């Protein structure tokens, strides 16, 4: 009986062991980068305040730069990126190039709102220095609002011109508010903004250059526009939803 039980025990142990090995996920071997230098500060070079759809790549990569005490670029310093769960970086870390910069492509998480992403490096005394960038993820409603903005609003409300779109901003006697202008727009309530879009500027004693869109756009379209305006506002609007940062 003893022999039988020990045989059973052995078999069970082997089964458990083999299951454990076969089921454990083979984690990718992470390539460890060896920094050859250390900086004193890390700054954003470009790529903050971008707008993308949920789960999607930011249109431009994020570039950060590591500087020394004098403010000149440091090559060979190790920079790592971190964000809320769902945010991915390609690559997740890197050594600064000859101009002190590291570039990464960022995909935002699956929920709409603001995402804080952090780039950090360690200085000579192994103290962590970091810089935080804000990015904006649009859900369905905000994406719809953005398309409507591109079609109907942007040519007056965005002062920047592109090759394909000449801005009408400078031609207007009363300047419209760019939708990123949070200082002004955040003070206007949802109801008032909806009224201005639906009935035009004069509805709230504002310029008649802002036409009424209530007969052209449906209620849900105007709601979507509002959601987009709130999402891209800078400083952030209170109704823009939560901020996702690394835990």
């Amino acid at each position: 009986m003893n022999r039988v039980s020990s045989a059973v025990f052995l078999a069970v142990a082997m089964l458990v062991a083999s299951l454990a090995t076969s089921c454990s996920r083979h984690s990718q071997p992470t390539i460890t980068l060896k920094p050859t230098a250390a900086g004193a500060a890390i700054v954003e070079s470009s790529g903050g305040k971008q707008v993308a759809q949920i789960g999607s790549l930011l249109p431009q990569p994020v570039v950060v730069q590591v500087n020394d005490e004098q403010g000149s670029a440091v090559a060979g310093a190790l920079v790592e990126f971190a964000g809320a769960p769902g945010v991915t970086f390609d690559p997740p870390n890197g050594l600064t190039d000859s101009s002190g910069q590291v570039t990464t492509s960022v995909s935002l998480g699956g929920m709409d709102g603001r995402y804080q992403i952090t780039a950090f490096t360690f200085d000579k005394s192994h103290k962590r220095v970091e810089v935080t960038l804000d990015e904006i993820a649009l859900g369905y409603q905000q994406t719809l609002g953005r398309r409507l903005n591109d079609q109907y609003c942007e040519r007056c409300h965005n002062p920047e011109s592109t090759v394909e779109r000449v801005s009408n901003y400078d031609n207007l006697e009363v300047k419209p508010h760019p939708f990123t202008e949070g200082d002004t727009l955040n003070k206007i309530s949802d109801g008032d903004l909806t009224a201005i879009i639906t009935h035009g500027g004069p509805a709230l004693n504002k310029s008649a250059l802002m036409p009424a869109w209530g007969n052209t756009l449906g209620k849900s379209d105007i709601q979507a526009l509002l959601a987009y305006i709130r999402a891209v506002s800078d400083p952030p609007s209170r109704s823009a939803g939560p901020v996702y940062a690394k835990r």
Partner: protein
Amino acid sequence: MKEKLTALWQKLFGDSVRAFGVVSLIFLGSLAIAPAKNFFSEWRHYQHGYLRMIRNRSEANTLQRHFQGGIQQIWLPELGVVDRCTSCHVGLKEASLTDVARQPYRTHPAIPHKLDEFGCTVCHRGQGAATTVEEAHNSTLAWEQPILPAKYIESSCGECHRGRLLGTPKLNEGRGLLSRYGCVHCHTVKLTDGTTMKATDDPPSLSHIADKTSREWIYAWLKDPQAYASTATMPNFKLSDEDARDMSAFLIANSTPVAGDTVTLTAKASADPAAGASLYGESFCASCHAVQNAAGNMVGGDVGPELTKVGSKVKPEWLQSWLRNPRAYDAGTAMPHYRFNDGQVVTLAGFLEAKSDSDLLANIHLEAATPEQIAHGKRLVSDYGCASCHEIAGIKKPENFAPELGRIGSKPVTQLIFLPGMPHTLPDYIAGKIKQPRAFSPGLKMPQYTFTPAQIDSLTTALLALNERATTLPSALAVPAMHESDYQPAGKAGKLMTDLACFSCHRINGHGGDMAPDLTWEGSSVQREWLVQFFKNPGTLRPSLIRRMPRFNLADAEVNELTDYIMTVYQSPAVDRDAMPMSGYSQGQVELGKQLFYGKYSCQGCHIVDTKTDKGYIGPTLTHVGSRLTASWMYQWMKNPQALRPGTIEPNRAMSDEDARALTAFLMSQKGGAKQEAVKK
């Protein structure tokens, strides 16, 4: 050891009463497992967490009232939905929880559908009936439906919505890429409405290629199309030097000349870059063709091929013939037949020939082809399926050359072969295939495309929408696509419109491009005399636009033919030509209209009537509108612009009849008097 075990046995089962007690206890214990499992279940844990969270909120009472404990379920038999997601995602329908970042408690973001009508898995996939986090979200038990990553979520919209939706830019882009990059030439894509996806690109016929270009260029192009033009849609087939040599040999040997296409050069191309550049600009070639400028930016449209290095590609005699009449070489080309005179042809040809890259063909030296090489080349051309896209004399378009993709979005994971290190999910597989098709097996024929990561995401989104569920959904849910009509104008004017390729830019009766205005009701809209003048000199309307109507150098008879056709046929039933008089408005009405224009409706924000004061740059300039549009059209336009031209950005101001009449009176008085004075100066 043995003694100890025997002692234990004696202790537990020594006599029958004792044995009965112990067995009963074991039985009771095992009975308790089920309720215990239930009590410690994940959903209960999350529901407790939810209750703790809402306790501190101001609207706690409302939330508490809405809360229902226990396993929740959305059951929609006609959709095959049994979704228990709301057991953990408790606050999905609570509008006040938008500020909650912690999952599973956040409210569902606003979408146009109700959760109770569609459930969760219709859009998000996953195992609806599961009641644990792992089983619901991942495919732990080799179930086929893991949660769809957020970046592909628009694919689910595409199961019912077969056409474009404003709120799904990725899905729209992906579908556009499938058609534009020729995917559907090799892969048949059967759509749920019974149609097949159509290609929107128009790969050139190769039956007469030797007229157009050299064997060396074909070789260089086959080796790396993007080296010639970075915007080329032709993918890279990763051919060996020998294969490219033999294929180029076959294509040249197989080519037959087109009668009258390449006449011998009568005039040498003129080398007047300034005149060439201005003719290129005046003819608005850049509306369709792109050229990479010195800064590396692509300037121009993507209807025709990129012209950055065109001088290294085309033969001078072919280029001149093409500019003279492109339809002689390719009857179906999107390029209009400009009626250039001989001087213009040599000027433009000279300008284009100078756009060359001496390095492109510098290192390519091909010896005369042997019959074996040509035969080998022919075999390769068949093997690679070149004739799926291109017309090649003597080679039939292969059928079912590549796998059909109509159900690719629900292909079982068990049927896929993954690359090492790749996550075992269908979206990752599709994206990986598009990114590096040959990595899956060196023998595969699918070529290498140059899609950006964002384009790959869009393509994957569009492909995931082609799935089994899309075919089983109740047909009432389907939102059909607007299919391109096959409208063709009739008669002589119709032939002329084909020759001028009007439909490359304009849309009429649901057929044609979207670069220029829809002309379906053009006859109701404009005055005859204006249209005649516009054909002769189109540079007057919207001078700020980059893409504009070119001058086709039409003969008077042609202009009359076109004008007559447009004025008679393209009439809107909604516009009664006689409803509004063309003239005779009182000064008072004109004055009232002016006040409305600058005051109540502030039209000057977008339009210019007085060039001295108005600056609006969005709509067309209205300085001459009184001699351009008909009064009836104007009146109807003012009342409801979208009814006349769906999608126009002119807002509908719901004008009263009086306001619309007064504005019509004011605009009819704008006949460009001030402009003519300016010209005289």
